[in-house]
């Protein structure tokens, strides 16, 4: 369950980028396949970790990046659904490239309401 640690860390990093008094609506994270993040577990962890924080109603948009493989037979690079996918040349001898990405990409925020708007 590294998802909970990741959710807690994500709150800390997102907070540093949140404009003053803005309401975060959606937070977009890119995760490479090596990180082995389970989307359902991540969603649950995000809900649990954000409870009673300014992110309690913020949607987590987790983008699972595909495997990027390098074929050791024909030297082609391609995106695959799983690590042991066969190359178009028929070889199954491929090596993953990257895959350890874990980045907060962007945040969609509602701008702060001014006291004028509240009247």
């Amino acid at each position, binding site marked *: 369950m590294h998802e909970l*640690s990741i959710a807690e860390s994500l709150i800390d*990093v997102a907070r540093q980028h949140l404009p003053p008094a803005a309401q975060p609506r959606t937070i977009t994270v890119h995760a490479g396949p090596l990180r082995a993040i389970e989307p359902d577990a991540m969603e649950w962890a995000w809900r649990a970790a954000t409870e009673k924080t300014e992110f309690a109603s913020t949607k987590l948009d987790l983008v699972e990046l595909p495997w990027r493989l390098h074929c050791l037979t024909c030297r082609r690079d391609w995106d695959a659904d799983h*690590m042991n996918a066969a190359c178009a040349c028929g070889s199954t001898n491929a*090596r993953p490239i990257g895959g350890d990405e874990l980045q907060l990409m962007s945040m969609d925020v509602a701008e702060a309401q001014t006291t004028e708007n509240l009247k």
Partner: protein
Amino acid sequence: MKVPIVENVLKINDEMAAMNRRTLQDACVFTIDVIGAPGCGKTALIEATLAACRDDPTRFGVIVGDLATDRDATRLARQCQHVVQINTGKGCHLDANQVRQAVAQIELDAIDVLFIENVGNLICPVGFDLGQDVKVGVFCVAEGDDKAAKHPYLVQEADLLLLNKIDLLPHVPFDLEKLQADVERLNPGVDLLQVSVSDSGLEKWLPWLRDRIAAAISNRASIAQA
């Protein structure tokens, strides 16, 4: 309004890990993060290593992480004066902040090498930098020959892989060449050393460890002189 960011999600852990690395390197302590499944023999490996190196000039410390109990620390304390147990409670891996607090309890001038035995887990510990110099992944033959293929992140990140309980090889279905091929595909050139803790089969691991310790200590001494 969309705010573009692009920032490492584990930035705060990684910054803390960088502080740990600086603290440990300034103190000339060579630090090894030991990662493996529960029961693969991490604690036994460290125990046997401490026993085998008893007459070496090298002084060891150990930080050991478990969800609960101080049983590993009690075992290791028989071999080593500088042992700190971290109980993570529900946490399935160590993080840099826990290690920072544990390091603060160790007299760094009194050790040359620090083992950090991570929580038994092949997945979660890999992504959390602790400030170590090297990561050592431990598999054992009783786990089966598909552990490398199923845990690519550990294999890719490891500076060394150990295959423990090699003495059990005649007794279990295990295709050594399959494991070696998976390792080579994921992390070309990384050493996969066969060890057996229970019958003191450490003859491949100890030279690797002693070479790395000697290199780290001489490297830091030359940096300190410069």
